[in-house]
């Protein structure tokens, strides 16, 4: 049996943070719950950590680490928002995307879909850069959230 199969077998999910278990179930492997109130959605683990560092420098506290990866699927962005919405500590969300293989227009579509599919009560700040930026900005502009 492979290591990850063995781990999945012996892992007692009741001992883990339920939000993290839920995230894995939604296909988001790289989510770590922290104790702050600013939720983050970032592509790339290094960039996500840099965002956390920069937030702390500015006096903020990240609510989580979340690397959304390069899978170009807007559903993953929607799931990220589901997880952050389920965390009562989250009072605002910062999305920071520097798109290389991850495309900005797909992320933008995900942000719009997330707002349509659930009630998002907290402010969302979005910073976009990289592949298909213009298309992404058009999508956000056309769908005020």
């Amino acid at each position, binding site marked *: 049996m492979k290591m990850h199969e063995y781990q999945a077998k012996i892992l007692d999910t009741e001992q883990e943070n339920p939000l993290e278990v839920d995230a894995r179930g939604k296909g988001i492997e790289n989510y770590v719950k922290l104790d702050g109130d600013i939720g983050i959605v970032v592509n790339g*683990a290094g960039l996500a950590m840099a965002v956390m*560092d920069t*937030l702390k420098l500015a006096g903020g506290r990240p609510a989580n680490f979340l690397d959304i990866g*390069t899978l170009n699927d807007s559903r993953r962005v929607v799931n990220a928002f589901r997880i952050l919405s389920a965390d009562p500590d989250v009072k605002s969300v910062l999305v920071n995307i520097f798109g*290389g293989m991850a495309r900005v227009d797909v992320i933008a579509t995900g942000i719009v879909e997330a707002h349509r599919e659930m009630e998002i009560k907290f402010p969302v700040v979005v910073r976009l850069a990289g592949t298909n930026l213009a298309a992404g900005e058009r999508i956000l502009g056309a769908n005020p959230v």
Partner: protein
Amino acid sequence: MSILVDENTRLLVQGITGGEGTFHARACIEYGTRVVAGVTPGKGGILWENKVPVFNQQDPGTEAIVLIGEIGGTAEQEAAAFIRKRVTKPVTAFIAGGAAPPGRRMGHAGAIVTGTAGRAEEKKKALVVVGVRLAESPAEIPEKIGGVTVHHGGRRDR
């Protein structure tokens, strides 16, 4: 983080004259990638497979170096040792993950802090000791690159 390579990207291959470098460079060229240069220390000046110019490591066009590191492993400490011995150009570093909780895996496998060497603070210490400037956030990098340096052999004094 990733880079989207297309038919316009100009690619440089590190170690192009070696086994791995040759294999991958050939595959890239066959696929249509523009391999414009290779780097192999000591073999600068030759033309690889009669197609691609090879350079030694020294690039006179580079004036300053930015090192982006992260928690986990000891690559930054190894870089510090190398910088001390061989690098005279000014180096600025940003180490990500200072705000990450110890013992948790942050995304890809290397970014986990176990023991002290993997901690951001330890990496920053190792780099500062050999004269590297530290940026506390990516935004600070440009201001840290600027400035006057005085060279003494292989180390910098600020």
